[in-house]
């Protein structure tokens, strides 16, 4: 079975990309593959904003991340990208604050790296 890392590059306002990443991740797990990390980079870091609170008729982004977290997937936030964007890295919801080096090492060990944006 293969080892994947996935990275998300677009902001939470891009609901379409978010739902696609989540469905891709679920299909990976169903097929028995490993997801070593989902990594928020570039404007993707805004997904870790604690205050994120969308209307009921919008995609339930927080719930989707919560589910992936409960399935044991390592959800990571790039600290460098977050700091450049002024994001508060003390409140990052289910995302673990990580250095770019940690992600680069995971990506180097993975069979596949798929970008979503």
């Amino acid at each position: 079975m293969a080892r994947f890392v996935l990275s998300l590059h677009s902001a939470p306002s891009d609901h379409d990309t978010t739902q696609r990443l989540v469905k891709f991740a679920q299909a990976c797990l169903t097929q028995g593959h490993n997801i070593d990390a989902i990594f928020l980079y570039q404007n993707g870091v805004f997904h870790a904003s604690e205050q994120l609170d969308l209307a009921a008729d919008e995609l339930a982004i927080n719930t989707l991340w919560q589910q992936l977290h409960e399935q044991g997937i390592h959800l990571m936030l790039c600290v460098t990208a977050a700091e450049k964007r002024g994001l508060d890295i003390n409140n990052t919801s289910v995302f673990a604050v990580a250095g770019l080096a940690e992600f680069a090492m995971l990506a180097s060990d993975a069979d596949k790296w798929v970008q979503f944006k």
Partner: protein
Amino acid sequence: MINVLVLSHHSPFDDLHIRDALDMTLIFAAVEQNISWLFSGPAVLALKKHQQPEHIGLKNYFKTIRTLEIYDVENIYVCEKSLLEYGLDKHNLLVEVKALNYQQQNQLIAQQQHIVNL
């Protein structure tokens, strides 16, 4: 009453561009200005009928586009050439629009006090 033109040229699910333009158009109608909305390039796809984004969990903003007629937003324009490029004609669209060639788009622009590109 002033003339305000909203320009759209992003594809329907390119971030929130079309939704931001829709809100701006509706509000200028609500404050009773003479608002127009011009769709060019991939933005014309936001007017395509029978789209159902709720099936993948996304908000169906196309329903709100249909309310433009209820709120008396009558000046909905599309770039004639862009319709052709995406294989659409007026019968494939959600609302009634006027298709404009470039010369007509220039006339529309010339009439405006403010133009906002969203």
